[in-house]
């Protein structure tokens, strides 16, 4: 009997409510995350992936609002809960790692003080317990605990990022949501950070949702992959399968855009055009203006997500597979 998924997002939509009208940044997104699973979310800038992440973690700020759908975390719907109700779940069971640690850490308090904040918000701990645990998580990510006294600006970029991850693991939560945590680092630091995250994940068994625009990076580490475009899910399935046989023309374009070390030398192909404006998206399939395989029905019919093998794909070319809902 399959275990209940840790996280079940159904039909989630997010609107930005502006004076001139609403813009839908995330459109009807559904996915699940099982215990210990590593889900990667990829897409271009502006495709809505960060907004989606914040929506799941209930961290949206005005003018962004959840416009519909549900986020079932351990069986409870998080949408509509107040901050007080959410704090029962926050950090203990679900934590967040943000893109730029320089911006995500309070610049005027020490690292240790920020760890202490998080711990004291969720239980009564003595000063020794707090210090011990803080030192422990820092060691887990390879940072000398003496840095508990340091301020964020005194650490290097990589160290800051890792201390953020350490902070996220204070309670070894069931789910860690990561918003492009490696994007601000150089390639070498990126790789080593990813390896470390994967190791930690395997040691402690938490699930990860990892948002990035870097497909090559995510391919080695994620179990499943979700490709987003213009606020919608375009492809969702097991990473290996998507890489071996990408179904959506957009995914194919993404994979052709970076070189592989193995195999014959092939010229790189980019995807022509620009991502669409979400205020007035293209009719029918949103990708059709840039799609090399577009045909006459594409501008007219909005495709659903169709199941092909274990993969879901939003493309009329695969309409033969049954719609997922």
């Amino acid at each position, binding site marked *: 009997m399959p275990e209940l998924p840790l996280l079940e997002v159904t039909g989630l939509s997010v609107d930005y409510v502006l004076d001139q009208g609403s813009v839908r940044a995330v459109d009807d997104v559904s996915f699940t995350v099982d215990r210990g699973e590593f889900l990667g979310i990829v897409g271009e800038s502006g495709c809505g992936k960060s907004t989606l992440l914040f929506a799941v973690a209930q961290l949206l700020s005005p003018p962004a609002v959840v416009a519909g759908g549900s986020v079932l975390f351990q069986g409870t719907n998080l949408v509509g809960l107040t*901050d007080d109700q959410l704090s029962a779940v926050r950090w203990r069971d679900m*934590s*967040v790692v943000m893109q730029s640690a320089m911006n*995500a850490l309070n*610049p005027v*308090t020490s690292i240790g003080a920020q760890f202490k*904040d998080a711990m004291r*918000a969720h239980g009564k701990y003595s000063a020794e317990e707090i210090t011990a645990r803080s030192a422990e998580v820092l060691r887990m990510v390879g940072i000398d605990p003496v840095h508990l006294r340091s301020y964020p600006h005194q650490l290097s970029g990589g160290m800051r990022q890792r201390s953020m991850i350490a902070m996220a693991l204070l309670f070894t939560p069931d789910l860690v949501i990561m918003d492009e945590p490696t994007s601000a680092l150089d390639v070498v630091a990126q790789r080593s950070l990813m390896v470390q995250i994967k190791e930690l994940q395997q040691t402690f068994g938490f699930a990860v949702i990892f948002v990035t625009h870097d497909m090559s990076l995510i391919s080695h580490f994620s179990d499943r992959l979700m490709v987003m475009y213009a606020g919608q899910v375009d492809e969702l399935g097991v990473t290996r399968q998507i890489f071996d046989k990408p179904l959506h023309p957009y995914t194919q374009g993404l994979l052709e855009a970076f070189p592989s070390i193995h195999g014959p030398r092939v010229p790189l192909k980019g995807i022509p055009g620009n991502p669409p404006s979400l205020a007035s998206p293209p009719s029918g399939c949103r990708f059709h203006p840039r799609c090399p395989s577009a045909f006459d029905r594409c501008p007219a019919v909005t495709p659903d997500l169709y199941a092909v093998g274990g993969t879901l794909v939003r493309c009329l070319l695969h309409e033969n597979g049954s719609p997922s809902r």
Partner: protein
Amino acid sequence: MRYALRRLGFFILTLWVAITLNFLLPRLMPGNPALAMMAKFHNQGVTPQTLHTLEILFGVNSHQSLIGQYFGYLHQIVTFNFGTSLDEYPASVTSVIGSAIWWTVGLVGITTVLAFILGTGLGIVSAWRRGGKLDSIVPPTFVITSAIPYFWVAMVLVLVFALTLHWFPSQGGYYVTTDTPGFNLTFFQDVVNHAFLPAFALLITTIGTWILTMRNTMITTLAEDYVRMARAKGLPSWRIMLDYAARNAILPNLTGFAMSLGFVVSGAILIEYVFNYPGVGYMLLQAVSGEDYPLMQGLFLLITVTVLFAILLADILTAILDPRTRAAR
């Protein structure tokens, strides 16, 4: 350390500029105004030393070059010899100032602290509850009040509360005819009674800026990632508001607050004038109308030094609260 030294250096530099301005201004004005003043002093029958001091301060009847005069002047300043007041002859400038200074310190000091605390608090809360009732009333109201001239507010208060309703006296620091200064309760009550309206006027005119600038920096700060992160950690609202948002929002404002002290002082001058409140500001204006230049100069230096001190304090406070400034080369 480096930072503190730099600020101290700036403090000394500005002080020097103020002193030099004091030196240059009477000499630069067409028809040396000091001449007329000296004539008045002569009529008073002053002692030769007094005359000499004044000559050094204002450069009349001097056979020295400008540079020579300047050094003589500096020497006097450093020895706190500001000359003799014309209006209060033969009292020295320092003693005359001394009698007025505590009135202003009391009035301005207490009001500023109150305005700062209330203003900052209101600004923080109003930004925290964006879109709430507080936020829709507070900004427009205080935008308007901050543009109202101080003296007008003082006049309206005098008209309404003193002359019409007779709740408070309309002028003075205490009832000169019936009371003598001393550490007794009646005097104290009298002082408070007289100080209430001026303090209130000063409070409502100065609080607006603090509310608004604090609110605006809070709003910018609330959009920062570390505030979102604090929410993600499930911290209680008040802690996010204070430790993460306000703590960061106040930093750019501290020096600004100190600088606006210059405006508070200006307001105090006008309010004291309207209320005939016997403080430093009122004294300055009396000196102006009496062409008592030595007193004027002394008061100007005093005011400048006070404001400079406040700014220095604010800078030090910023260094204490913001670890990044300490790291700056």
